[in-house]
């Protein structure tokens, strides 16, 4: 603080953003490039379970699935990470040992973020101590909508410090921010405050990751790179359940940010059922036929 940073906020036109999305999504991805995209998308998944009824057993199954996506199709990539609630971190860590798959944990009073800062920081420290490689925090939307941007920014900075070596993903919960102008501003605040990734949603609020929101965040990431040289990652989460959607998002990244972002290091899908739909498409591409959903394990 101390320096006055006078900058005009960029405005976003919603109608044209939607139009741009439609155009990007009309790309026709077939054959070879479709197969490549499906593999790529699999490797970018944060396989997620975030429910109050999550059990140790469910997390174990999920972890097994993360590195054994389909036995009939050798050579499939592993997913990028498993995303769980804090109490599940030690279990996931143990199950995934040696696979190279990361453990991500939500923290900071997920999903509402309604807790005081010390409680949030304690939670972050405890998941990092338990071995989480990545921390998915939520911003204080109430403060943001109230115009208290300094609070939001300070909070992210403090969480970032508490993360230590763990990567920080900042969830904006765009469904509560309502306008694209807000999405853009929240993205900027998060990136300035030290986010390694920015993420659309918790998955607990509707709408979650909408295409115009994702495009707006990708453009914010691009502008941030132009300004600072830093490459920030992106994670749409919530409502992405089909291979088709995943491929459309890959097109959006490629044409907005370029090939550097076509990697799990800089792009993730937060999803629970996406992997199976991609697997189904991969089997379809290689056998020429669709198989019943019953041929894909539901873990």
């Amino acid at each position, binding site marked *: 603080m101390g320096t006055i940073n006078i900058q005009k906020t960029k405005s976003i036109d919603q109608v*044209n*953003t939607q139009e*741009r999305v439609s155009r990007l999504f009309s790309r026709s991805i077939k054959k070879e490039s479709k197969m490549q995209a499906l593999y790529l998308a699999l490797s970018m998944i944060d396989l997620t379970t975030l429910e109050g009824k999550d059990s140790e057993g469910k997390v174990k199954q999920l972890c097994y699935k993360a590195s054994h996506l389909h036995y009939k199709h050798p050579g499939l990539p592993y997913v990028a990470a498993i995303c769980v609630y804090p109490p599940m971190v030690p279990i996931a860590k143990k199950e995934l040992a040696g696979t190279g798959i990361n453990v991500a944990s939500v923290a900071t009073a997920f999903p509402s973020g309604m807790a005081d800062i010390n409680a949030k920081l304690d939670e972050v420290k405890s998941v990092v101590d338990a071995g989480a490689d990545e921390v998915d925090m939520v911003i204080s939307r109430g403060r943001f909508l109230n115009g208290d941007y300094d609070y939001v920014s300070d909070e992210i900075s403090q969480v970032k410090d508490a993360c230590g070596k763990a990567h920080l993903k900042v969830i904006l919960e765009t469904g509560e921010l309502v306008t694209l102008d807000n999405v853009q501003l929240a993205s900027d605040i998060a990136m300035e405050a030290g986010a390694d990734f920015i993420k659309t949603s918790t998955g607990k609020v509707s709408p979650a990751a909408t295409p115009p929101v994702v495009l707006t965040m990708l453009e914010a990431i691009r502008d941030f790179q132009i300004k600072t040289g830093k490459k920030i990652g992106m994670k749409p989460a919530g409502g992405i359940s089909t291979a088709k959607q995943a491929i459309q998002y890959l097109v959006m990244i490629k044409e907005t940010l370029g*090939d550097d972002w076509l990697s799990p290091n800089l792009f993730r899908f937060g999803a629970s059922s996406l992997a199976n739909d991609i697997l189904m498409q991969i089997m379809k591409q290689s056998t020429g036929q669709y198989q019943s959903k019953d041929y894909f394990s539901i873990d």
Partner: protein
Amino acid sequence: MTKKQIWDYSPAPESTDHIQLKDQYDLFINGEFIPAVDGKYFDTINPSNEKKIAEVAEAGKADIEKAVASAKKAYEKTWSKMHPKERGKYIYRIARLLQERAREFSVIETMDGGKPIRESRDVDVPLAAAHFFYHAGWADKLEYAFPGRATEPLGVVGQIIPWNFPLLMAAWKLAPALATGNTVVLKPAETTPLTAMKLAEIIQEADLPPGVVNIVNGAGETGKFLVNHGDINKIAFTGSTDVGKYIMKSVAGSGKKYTLELGGKAANIIFEDAPIDQAVEGIINAIFFNQGHVCCAGSRLYVQEGVADEVIAKLQKRMESLIVGDPLDKNTDIGAINSKMQLDKIKMYVKLGKDEGGKIHQTACSLPKKGYWFAPTIFTDVSQSNRIVQEEIFGPVLAIQTFRTVDEVITKANNSPYGLSGGVWTDKGSKIFKVTQDIRAGVIWANTFNKFDPSSPFGGYKESGVGSEGGIEGLSGYVNLV
């Protein structure tokens, strides 16, 4: 691209199996396909690979005589006498048939003209059908279009259309003429005759009375015979300003009515408070839509100083993601230049731009070896006195200038012999009203560009034309009010 891409799009060509094309097309006169009197044919080629697609009969003076005579007969005997409701039914039928065969028309339009299939499929063909639907609705409601007045048709209309939107321009011309009770002799452009001939097949299938629509092909000579024919009551022309001037001179004193849609050099204005990323997309759409072969293309860009560097940098980056290549590929953004003649003209202007000291930037895309191609191009460091800023290039070439104040940019935008269209990008509504009121152009888009609708009149100020097409304004060009 030299750098190895992590993930590339595989070719996704639209299939051509389903289209029906003959090797030879005759003239469509009096409801039948007949050869030209002197038996001449000319080739129409695919500009993306220079391969011949078909040959087309070239109409001479005698053929024009026949076509006009058949149109005159159809006007006197059937079309002008028919109940307007019945005329409407025929036009609806054309619209529906066109929709049913949309895919075939899109592919042929792309093969004959070089435009990307994405555009012919999503813009040209659906809009052409929309024009027929819209005007079919007016056929029996003209008294509501002109309250308190009765309308009568003009008679035989000669219509000459350009090569940039061949089917769409045919629809713009035919639909209002037919709805108001006129009969037509239509001449498509010589480089893009095929979709008009396919439309003739639809007209035949729709069982339109013989002679109501006649379609004759040929170049400038054929057009001259049509313009100067004594039994023509109106000329409707879309094309270059030079030909427009010729037509005005030719019909002077003849009693013939005329509407002219001519060239343009539209100002596209980006203010500092504009939504920048969306404005950049708007610039791309304004100048690179249909390879810039658009009379209302936003070919003069004015960017307010404070955001000029950002806009130009983002524009250059965005240009690199444009896919230039096979027009039939569903992922192609920019197709082939329509003809060698047009390519030469674009090259001439780009050389001129460089010679006059403009700073050129072109995308790094690789262009196919065969066919007519030109990379997306922008010029900076140019001013109002550069010819590439003043003259219509009709290609993917954008001239960029900066400005400081609202008044300055309005003055510069108006400092052109043309006045067809324009664009303004700002977050502020009051600025939109100020600029759109003060710029003399037929259509000005606010925070968008190149949007068309049959109900919206389209026409120009100054050397951009006389009269309008579309909407009630467009109808008025085809009737006498009594």
